[in-house]
């Protein structure tokens, strides 16, 4: 069995795939269970905050302002800390920070240091520094305590031992401590560790904590925890050192609760965690007479580290990572993270979607190689309490890594996958080349070797006739006098693979008397973006937008059937288009087909049941609907569920964040197993829903459709096709 530490550094070739394999084998079950619990708790916790959206705006604003004014804030904070009677040290790098802390320990002849949870101390490898100076370090957070004995790096930024099951912990404790009685239950394990650590607390010379936030105006530190070990760490030993990054400083004490409320709800999904301390050390807390360690006067040191953060601050693309409050919402809401956890989807210190930017910022860009595991599904975007565009950060990392490896095989593979359109068209023209590919073992082996496509995956087979051609052939009423005009952007997926959904939509629009046009079918940049080829994506974005602007200027609404393409228009083009006004125009005028149908019905004062009749399904009105990750993020999924329910359809909706296919991600040989592991959650939900009889399967996205089709071996249609079946005569 390999230790996760051996494969933590993702700059080493092969470590990413080795760590994925290890995680899927050993850690996946615990990680999945725990992250999914955090995830669903988060949804209910944030819904209990009345002004959640406004609070997020406020938090974002404060963080932007703080990073902008960081040098001044640090000066102000230094004054506050000194006024309070503490000492302030700003460390340029890990070496300086470790050196300072070591000197403080030595000045007190410290033999034992107790530590609260501090990810920053992992970043600077403080423990080994202190231990090599003969100072014993006791990790007191129970998760960190486990990791100290299993010698693993954290697998999650909030719950560092989230990958450990109770059975594994029990085994570890039996081996390491040989207790008189077996330790089996969570209660027994916790009690054992608590007693062991109480002893350390009572004998410690120095306590080291992190800091979740620091207010520059008063020097107040906020510390968030559930166990009480952080409180013990700063209140029992006579000397307290708080170590954290410079980005944790905000201007005002009054604003601390803004972040605390968001942090607890977004992280573990609690209103607040058990203990939130706001302290301005050194505390006046009375000296306990029989505690020999406690001198008359307490001592406090605030150690802030830069270690690459100033460079991040000056980097227009990575700066927003500094706004992170380490809540872990982007980890828990990520389907890939749920499947493998932070030992694969993470580096030596930082984990998950946000982890890439931090490994890059505090280490090297190569160490952020796990950013490949971000598929751009975007589910983390609405969960982030400071509105960081996490997929955007990962696209930047991928682009920078690609730029560095000019001639590598990976780069060529990326080029091929990002030119999916050409690939698909080629297959289409050569009389369904893909069918041949799918039937040939040799060709599939070659694809695996040279393009990186897993041999278990079938390439999508193109339709005999494209959507554009079908559209031209079809006889339809011309609604030239209609006040509502739409242009359908025939995304490559609808055009070459699933023309049926496009045609179904056109038929409904005809029934509603809407004037329909078809735009050119050109690549929109989704495939380029998910490969991290930002420049190529930007070029495509400009091209598509210029083409569509002509329609918008003439009063057309833009519709595209593929959610990942709609998400480009509504979200990703913001970063890609030079002219932001163009983006907002496109953003405002583009719709998902059913979202648009819903609006038209409203405008025409019609109810969905006036047009769609569930009776036309002859009793088959039970459906299972899997939305689409990006459709959920841009909030365009709700109308689909609403319209189905309002027409009398019995809808069960999937609860997974993403299907796991995510464009070309699930096709890649390195990621195929993760993709299937994620798919299993979805398949399980379908089977559960099918218990009262098999349901019609609906999916909005092509990738989701492929994933479900392969996993369930059953037909999957777009909801618009179901609506078409239910459409009444005029």
């Amino acid at each position: 069995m390999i230790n996760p530490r051996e494969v933590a550094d993702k700059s080493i070739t092969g470590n990413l795939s080795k760590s994925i394999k290890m995680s899927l084998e050993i850690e996946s079950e615990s990680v999945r269970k725990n992250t999914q619990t955090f995830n669903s708790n988060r949804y209910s916790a944030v819904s209990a905050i009345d002004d959640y959206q406004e609070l997020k705006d406020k938090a974002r604003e404060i963080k932007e302002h703080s990073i902008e004014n960081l040098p001044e804030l640090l000066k102000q904070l230094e004054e506050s800390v000194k006024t309070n009677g503490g000492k302030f040290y700003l460390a340029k790098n890990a070496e300086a920070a470790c050196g300072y802390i070591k000197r403080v320990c030595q000045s007190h002849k410290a033999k034992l240091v107790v530590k609260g949870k501090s990810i920053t101390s992992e970043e600077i490898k403080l423990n080994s520094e202190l231990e090599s100076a003969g100072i014993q370090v006791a990790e007191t957070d129970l998760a960190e305590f486990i990791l100290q004995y299993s010698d693993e790096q954290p697998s999650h930024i909030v719950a560092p031992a989230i990958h450990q099951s109770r059975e594994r912990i029990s085994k570890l404790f039996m081996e390491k401590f040989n207790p008189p009685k077996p330790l089996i239950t969570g209660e027994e394990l916790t009690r054992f560790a608590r007693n062991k650590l109480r002893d350390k607390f009572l004998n410690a010379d120095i306590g080291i904590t992190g800091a979740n936030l620091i207010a520059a105006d008063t020097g107040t530190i906020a510390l968030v925890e559930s166990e009480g070990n952080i409180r013990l760490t700063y209140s029992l030993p006579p000397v307290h050192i708080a170590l954290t990054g410079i980005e944790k400083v905000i201007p005002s004490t009054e604003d601390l609760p803004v972040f605390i409320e968001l942090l607890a709800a977004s992280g573990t999904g609690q209103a607040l965690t058990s203990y939130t301390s706001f302290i301005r050390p050194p505390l006046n807390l009375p000296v306990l007479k029989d505690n020999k360690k406690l001198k008359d006067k307490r001592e406090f040191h605030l150690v802030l580290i830069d270690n690459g953060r100033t460079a991040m601050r000056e980097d227009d693309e990575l700066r927003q990572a500094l706004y992170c409050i380490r809540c872990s919402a982007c980890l828990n809401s990520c389907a890939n993270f749920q499947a493998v956890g932070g030992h694969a989807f993470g580096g030596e210190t930082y984990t998950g979607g946000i982890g890439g930017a931090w490994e890059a910022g505090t280490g090297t860009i190569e160490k952020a190689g796990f950013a490949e595991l971000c598929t751009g599904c975007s589910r983390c975007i609405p969960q982030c309490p400071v509105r960081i565009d996490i997929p955007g950060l990962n696209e930047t990392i991928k682009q920078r890594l690609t730029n560095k490896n000019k001639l590598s095989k990976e780069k060529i593979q990326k080029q091929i996958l990002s030119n999916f359109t050409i690939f698909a068209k080629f297959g289409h023209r050569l009389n369904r080349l893909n069918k041949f590919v799918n039937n040939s073992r040799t060709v599939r082996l070659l694809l695996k070797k040279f393009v990186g496509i897993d041999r278990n995956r079938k390439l999508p087979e193109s339709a005999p006739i494209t959507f554009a051609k079908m559209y031209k052939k079809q006889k339809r009423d011309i609604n030239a006098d209609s006040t509502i005009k739409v242009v359908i952007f025939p995304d490559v997926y609808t055009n070459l693979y699933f023309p049926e959904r496009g045609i179904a939509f056109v038929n409904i629009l005809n029934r509603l008397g809407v004037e329909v046009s078809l735009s050119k079918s050109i690549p929109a940049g989704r495939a380029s973006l998910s490969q991290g080829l930002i420049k190529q994506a930007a070029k495509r974005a400009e091209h598509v937008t210029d083409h569509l602007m002509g329609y918008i200027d003439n009063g057309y609404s833009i519709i595209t059937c593929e959610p990942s393409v709609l998400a480009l228009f509504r979200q990703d083009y913001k970063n890609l288009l030079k002219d932001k006004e163009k983006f907002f125009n496109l953003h405002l005028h583009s719709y998902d087909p059913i979202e648009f149908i819903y609006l038209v019905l409203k405008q025409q004062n019609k109810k969905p049941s006036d047009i769609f009749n569930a009776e036309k399904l002859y009793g088959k009105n039970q459906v299972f609907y899997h939305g689409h990750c990006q459709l959920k993020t841009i909030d365009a999924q709700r109308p689909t569920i609403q319209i189905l329910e309002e027409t009398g359809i019995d809808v069960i909706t999937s609860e997974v964040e993403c299907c796991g296919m995510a464009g070309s991600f699930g096709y890649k040989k390195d990621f195929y197993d993760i993709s299937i592991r994620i798919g299993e959650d979805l398949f399980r939900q379908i089977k559960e829903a099918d218990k009262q009889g098999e349901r019609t399967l609906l999916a909005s996205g092509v990738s989701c459709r492929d994933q479900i089709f392969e996993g369930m071996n059953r037909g999957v249609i777009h909801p618009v096709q179901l609506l078409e079946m239910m459409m009444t005569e005029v």
Partner: protein
Amino acid sequence: MNDREALINIFMESALKTGASIEFVKNNSELITKTLRNSVSIANSIVVADEEILNSLTGDYFSDNSIPTLEKLEKADLGISYAFAGIARTGSIAVNIDSGYGAYVSLLPQKHIALLKIENIVYNPRDIFTEDFVNSFEAHNGIVVISGPSATADMGELVKGAHGPSRLHLIIIKPEEIVEENEA
């Protein structure tokens, strides 16, 4: 039901959700003492946060707990402190941990009882961080917002009582004129 009553109801509901238990008592030192004696009758060793608590209790039951020692604190079954504020939405209480022994008595023993005046309950955590509060920070060099007993899920399942108390009991003190409510 007026706004104030609604706020108290929210507080009760949220506090129970954190795993705390709650009871109400009228602001009368004899009644408070009686209530406390009921809650502590099984405790072998009790520590209190400060003189104010001692003064608010009558009789000699609590008198030998004048100044806690570390040993006493470590072995105590029960710690009693005031909470200077309650937070309805999150079911939390705020305890001063800078002066007195509040930091220790709310953390070291197995059980923590906090006395909270009903008029000090606010809605959101941010509501205790008013300008006045921040300006008077001298008196609050350290505070801890407590939401339920200490807990961990690190050992594979949720366990109450990690490094801190496994039980948190809130005694809400109402002005004497308010008609007594049912215990929750």
